[in-house]
């Protein structure tokens, strides 16, 4: 009871937004990162809203409010908001119950997001973030790097202006483009995309922070000129005029049908809540590894739950932490949550003030920006460090290949299972050290249980004299082991301290 009360007290402490540390951050860098984040979240929000079967307005509202709430309660410069995996899962979950574009679909999506938020808030109350602490740094590095490669692969179609290629295997896309490139590639889109990418990478070598801005300005101007030259010939996909209205604010409709449908959606909600939470906490732990000391996983859980719970009332939908936008945020020098909060405000400002300029932002440019972000997520130094330990090497390669071949969800689950497995393996090992004259003093440390009691038994039966066992260093002993020790003591084979 006392523990519960203590637990609740710590949980409630999370509710107070933590002021960011005053030390060593510059407003200029935070705002710059926020602005660039806003530019990249607008196209992403619209795309992800379509993936979820919703409208661009919903995507923008999610880009504003989900991002804002997550950053407000987060303890790190983690950027949240609309997310691919979560959006796709929402779309798939609701499609059997309503057609895309219908009002019913919107209200089901809203209530599903609320349910996801409630589940994540429950995870926060139950301190569920503990579960995600088992991720080994190697698994987190592998997931991050795998996501980086996946982002690069996903941006290929946009960069070259081809139709979306439905491929099952990660590198199949490259084969298709190499063999049929002449027919598939739009030369104008490829010119815009590749030149922006090359410029961005070149600038990144010398002025790391301005790489994305340089690529965006160059690509934006080039695609504007091409569109003014002949929009029919160049066939560039553009963002279009983005509407922003307040009609989406309010409580989503609830009818008698909703109860039945929501009951059926509970398994989907559990999966979405888990995926969203695990992505967010993987990103947060990666930030922790990069030196953000005030990381608190329970705060991140609360932030995500609150954001997903509140988003539908504000016209948005459920999201999670974003790998690529967080990576970009850090790359641009953001150190506090002000970057994320200003990013949300910049989205609103850009849509309000710059909608006519934004209409001409073309997909090849956005793809080039995403590729630069994806490239920045692949870090050779991390790979080299992970290579030195055998267990970490195994976790890394197993996780990264499952991200490649089976997707992010399976990668996260496998990374968790492997981390947990190696953790259990490491802690359950029995270490036996001998001391004293003719080795009759024996210290046992680690865990002693039914699985390794026979190791000790072999030593006991082999020993000529009575063994003095020191079991004070054991961190775990199970019933089978306790009974074995007792029987040896009664047989006079060993003596042991308690």
């Amino acid at each position, binding site marked *: 009871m006392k523990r519960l009360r203590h637990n609740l007290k710590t949980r409630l402490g999370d509710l107070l937004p933590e002021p960011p540390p005053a030390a060593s951050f510059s407003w200029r860098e935070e705002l710059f990162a926020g602005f660039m984040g806003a530019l990249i979240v607008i196209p992403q929000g619209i795309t992800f809203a379509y993936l979820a079967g919703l409208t661009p307005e919903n995507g923008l509202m999610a880009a504003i409010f989900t991002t804002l709430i997550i950053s407000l309660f987060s303890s790190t410069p983690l950027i949240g908001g609309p997310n691919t995996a979560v959006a796709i899962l929402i779309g798939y979950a609701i499609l059997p119950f*309503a057609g895309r574009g219908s009002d019913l679909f919107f209200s089901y999506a809203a209530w599903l997001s609320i349910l996801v938020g409630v589940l994540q808030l429950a995870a926060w109350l139950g301190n569920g973030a503990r579960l995600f602490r088992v991720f080994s740094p190697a698994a987190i590095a592998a997931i991050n790097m795998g996501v980086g490669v996946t982002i690069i692969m996903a941006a290929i179609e946009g960069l070259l202006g081809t139709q979306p290629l439905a491929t099952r295997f990660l590198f199949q896309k490259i084969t298709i483009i190499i063999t049929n490139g002449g027919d598939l590639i739009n030369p104008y889109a490829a010119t815009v995309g590749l030149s922006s990418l090359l410029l961005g990478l070149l600038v990144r070598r010398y002025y790391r922070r301005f790489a994305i801005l340089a690529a965006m300005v160059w690509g934006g101007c080039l695609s504007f000129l091409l569109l003014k030259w002949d929009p029919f010939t160049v066939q560039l996909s553009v963002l279009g005029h*983005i509407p922003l209205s307040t009609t989406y604010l309010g409580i989503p409709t609830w009818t008698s049908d909703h109860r039945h449908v929501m009951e059926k959606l509970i398994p989907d909600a559990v999966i979405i809540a888990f995926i969203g939470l695990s992505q967010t906490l993987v990103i947060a732990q990666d930030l922790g590894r990069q030196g953000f000391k005030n990381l608190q996983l329970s705060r991140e859980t609360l932030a995500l739950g609150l954001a997903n719970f509140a988003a539908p009332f504000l016209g948005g939908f459920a999201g999670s932490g974003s790998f690529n936008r967080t990576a970009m945020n850090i790359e641009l020098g953001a150190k506090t949550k002000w970057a994320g909060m200003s990013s949300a405000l910049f989205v609103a400002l850009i849509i309000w003030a710059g909608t006519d300029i934004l209409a001409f932002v073309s997909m090849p440019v956005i793809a080039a920006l995403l590729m630069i972000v994806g490239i920045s997520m692949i870090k050779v130094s991390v790979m080299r460090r992970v290579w030195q330990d055998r267990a970490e090497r195994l976790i890394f390669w197993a996780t990264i290949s499952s991200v490649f071949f089976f997707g992010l969800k399976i990668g996260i689950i496998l990374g968790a299972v492997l981390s947990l497995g190696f953790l259990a393996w490491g802690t359950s090992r029995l270490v036996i050290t001998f001391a004293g004259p003719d080795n009759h003093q024996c210290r046992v440390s680690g865990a002693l249980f039914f699985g390794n009691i026979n190791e000790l038994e072999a030593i006991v039966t082999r020993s000529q004299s009575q063994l003095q066992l020191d079991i004070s260093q054991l961190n775990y002993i199970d019933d089978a082991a306790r009974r074995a020790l007792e029987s040896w003591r009664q047989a006079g084979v060993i003596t042991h301290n308690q």
Partner: protein
Amino acid sequence: MKVSFSATRRLMLTCSGIISLIIASSLIAATSSDNSAQPAIADLLANDHLDDYYSNVVLGYRIITETELYATRYVGNQLRCRNCHLDAGRTPDAIPLNVAGMFPKWRAKNGLKNGIELRIRECFLYSLDGLMPPENAPEVMAVAAYMHYLSQGQVIGKPPPGMGVPTLPNTGQDPNPVTGKAVYDAKCAACHGIDGAGDATHSYPPLWGSGSYNSGAGMRNIDKAAGFIWANMPFGSGRTLTPQEAKDVAAYINDQVRPIDPRQGKLRLAVDAIYLWLSNLW
């Protein structure tokens, strides 16, 4: 012996299976060609529980009727699709939209085999003077679904009755914008305004000026515009103008200032001029 018996039996079974399949498919064909089998738009609008196809049909209908609300991203002027595709594309001789069976088709306008998506995207670029949506944009897919819905029961490749606009007979005279202005002021200006700017409620569309279709649109073709005007205008009392009057009005309307054809912008002209100069220099 036994083997041959079972083989005969298998053959008979296969034959009867094929025959019943043929009968069933002809029955299905007979029922599906019945246009009244599918729900009316009013029923679809009133029904919340629609599958993905009919939801897209409804979205397509809404894009056609309230273009500025449901296809905001790509519209550049004050027109709605239904301003020309009267009654949301259900009026013959007013460019009806029940033509899904006519695509893909070759069009001289762009020298390409046009799928229905490309045709829809071109409407956004020229008639709506906006941005060309991507091929897989949800707006394009919804309009395509709506056109598919309207085309139920049509024969593929056979032009439905009243497709496009009627072709007016040769009157022996050129279209005359001066007489056209007189006709316009007398019969059209009451709704569309003397300045051709229409009204703000989207009921009477702007016919020229910045809010209207650009010079690349099909309506810019005087013959097509005249056919449309003769068959449908003044609204509610179509076929009251003479063919020559319709041609004159069309010439007057298309003589006015309107957004340029995006393929012929100043940049395009400059690039072409430089190219010509360079190639002469060679």
